[in-house]
């Protein structure tokens, strides 16, 4: 097993990609962790790497992430989507444990190259689906596992995405990102649904991309039982921001975050509304979630065990996104151009 250090020694950690998510969430968690020694920062924008190294007060900056190979045991890969696969694969092949931001990659083919590299060197490949670490997400999984609702008959998910995120670059808006709201944000929710509900397959999919990346999408999916799943994601609208699962014995509504809530309505009466009590989460929701994600990753590296969201788990969400894109139809509106003009020239 390469680069697994003796218990007690800190993991030498490299940070690759110094954008908004690293600055706001990963870096504070890495700094706070007693298990981590920050060795270096790399970014294509040297000023970003230098700024984060200065903020951390430790670690060097590297013009090229490869220069960190041999100096680190593990790395965070939080770069634009197009680079998830090549950078992660190179690190994994060099025996470095990798925590890569979501989406794991743009396609299952890219995921497979990463998985093969991790397998080859027996290193940990974890994917940053931090939503799994939200207290409500675990509670929901327990409710579904306990089969409180009976067989699920229908699922409806509406979620707004990303309106306030302080992106440090325009990479997320480029077609090279591999997709828009579905791949960038919907992949979180697909991962949760797969974790909660088991196998899901795509049926139909529409989005508003017209040569760029989609801002709005609607997906029709199907559970293994055949129950329909309707998904709407939007970068421009305020939606309900919950998932509603209807079962034969009742209905469960889940808001993972903003609102963080569960509402369980058994058929035949009663209504339980609440949240998963978690004082640390109440104080600093995202900090806590990223702390737990990092602790899970470090624990996996130390134990040589799979993390909560392993590469093979995360690949399923990418596969579902890919299945949607493969069925893509255009999402048009009466006010689109030229439809609007045709409405008045009739």
């Amino acid at each position, binding site marked *: 097993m390469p680069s697994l250090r003796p218990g007690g020694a800190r993991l030498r950690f490299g940070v690759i990609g110094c954008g908004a998510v690293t600055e706001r969430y990963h870096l504070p968690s890495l700094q706070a962790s007693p298990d981590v020694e920050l060795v270096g920062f790399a970014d294509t924008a040297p000023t970003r790497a230098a700024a984060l190294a200065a903020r951390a007060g430790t670690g060097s900056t590297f013009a090229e992430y490869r220069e960190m190979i041999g100096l680190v045991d593990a790395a965070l890969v939080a770069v634009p989507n197009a680079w998830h696969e090549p950078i992660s694969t190179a690190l994994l092949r060099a025996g470095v444990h990798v925590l890569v931001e979501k989406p794991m990659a743009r396609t299952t083919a890219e995921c497979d190259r990463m998985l093969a590299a991790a397998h080859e060197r027996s290193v940990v490949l974890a994917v940053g689906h931090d939503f799994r670490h939200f207290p409500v997400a675990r509670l929901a999984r327990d409710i579904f596992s306990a089969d409180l609702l009976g067989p699920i008959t229908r699922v409806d998910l509406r979620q707004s995405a990303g309106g306030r995120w302080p992106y440090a670059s*325009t990479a997320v808006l480029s077609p090279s990102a591999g997709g828009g709201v579905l791949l960038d944000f919907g992949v979180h929710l697909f991962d949760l649904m797969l974790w909660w509900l088991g196998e899901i397959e795509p049926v139909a999919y529409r989005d508003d991309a*017209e*040569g760029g990346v989609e801002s709005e999408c609607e997906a029709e999916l199907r559970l293994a039982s055949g129950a329909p799943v309707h998904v709407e994601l939007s970068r421009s609208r305020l*939606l309900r921001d919950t998932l509603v699962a209807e079962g034969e014995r009742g209905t469960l509504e889940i808001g993972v975050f*903003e609102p963080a809530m569960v509402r369980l309505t058994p058929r035949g009466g009663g209504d339980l509304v609440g949240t998963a009590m978690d004082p640390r989460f*109440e104080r600093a929701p995202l900090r806590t979630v990223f702390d737990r994600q990092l602790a899970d990753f470090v624990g996996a590296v130390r134990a040589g065990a799979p993390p909560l969201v392993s590469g093979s788990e995360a690949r399923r969400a990418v596969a579902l996104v890919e299945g949607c894109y493969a069925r893509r139809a255009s999402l048009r509106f009466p006010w689109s151009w030229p439809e609007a003009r045709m*409405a008045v020239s009739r």
Partner: protein
Amino acid sequence: MTGSEALRGRRVLVVGASGFLGGRLAERLVVEHGAQVRVLIRRVAAATRVARLPVEVVAGDVLDAESVAKAADGCAVLFNCAKGTGGDPARRRATDVDGVRHLIEGADRSAARLVQVSSLAVYDLPPEGDVTERTADAPAGDAYADAKLAGERLALELGRTRGVAVTVVQPTVVYGPFATVHGSDILDELRTARMILVEAGRGICNAVYVDDAVTALLLAATSPRAPGERFLVSGAEHPTWAEFFGGFARMLGAEDRLVPMSASEARALWDASRRRPWLASEALALLRREKTIRKRLLATREGLWLRGLAERLAPGRLQAAERWAEPGAAEDVGQAEPSLGPMRPWLVDYLAKRARVRIDKASELLGYRPEFGLAAGLSLTEAWARWAGLLGGSARA
């Protein structure tokens, strides 16, 4: 009709493309004109909608000469749809004035034309009668009008001295899908409160559907007679404010929320309201209007604590309060009479006016012919509002 071929394959820059008018302009430039569109974006998250199009997204700021120069490089036309926003008046004015200076420099270097979007607000609207490009300028004192006027004067003057083809377009009341001021803001207001209809809504609303305004911008960019001129751009009709606001109220089934009142009654209501309000009532009014703020506050520790407290003390009332907080429920139409907010005196005066904007100059020199009547424009706006969940219910159901 808008010189469809003139921009095909040409590189153009849209500043303000994350906004309502600029966003639709970018869409038409791509879909209808086959232009190579570049957009200058200050905040990446605000540009996610325009990024659905094959546009080149450049991060930068109209206040930064260097980023404007880079964005303008190689462009045949620069469209300035930027609007100063935010609470800082100096920054707003800088966007409207300094931004123009940087764009003129960029246009000069690339031999590009500049289409400067201004506003009807630059004119001193008479109480009655016609408004044309020869109508007197608005008197100084209103920050928005002052900045817009300074921006268009600077654009035309620098255009003349630097030999840059500058055209100023002055749209009137632009509405349509994704409009905020004359769209979602009106719906948000009518969904939560009653609204004064000044002089029973007999004032003239010089409304222009967004696609007509965009058509005028495209003509201004391509017409040989456009440079050096300023053009008022309005719709073909002169509806009243009763018809305009009434259209939005009908989308909500809330016609009774428009309260007809004379201008002097409206001013008296404002004067009476100037007594200092309680913080709590102001905060509550704000929460009712602002969905995003409400959601964020209710997700805070204090919000959750208050909720927990309410659950213990008065479960029945909490349920009622939650219905109130969810659009599509008690906040919506049909509940106990909602509040009637006072209206600022300048707005009362503005809505009472019966001035009619003439579009003869744009028609004659640019060949501008508005195509969207109020009924058609409102119908498209309603389809969008329903989809966007602004009418309560459906999108969030």
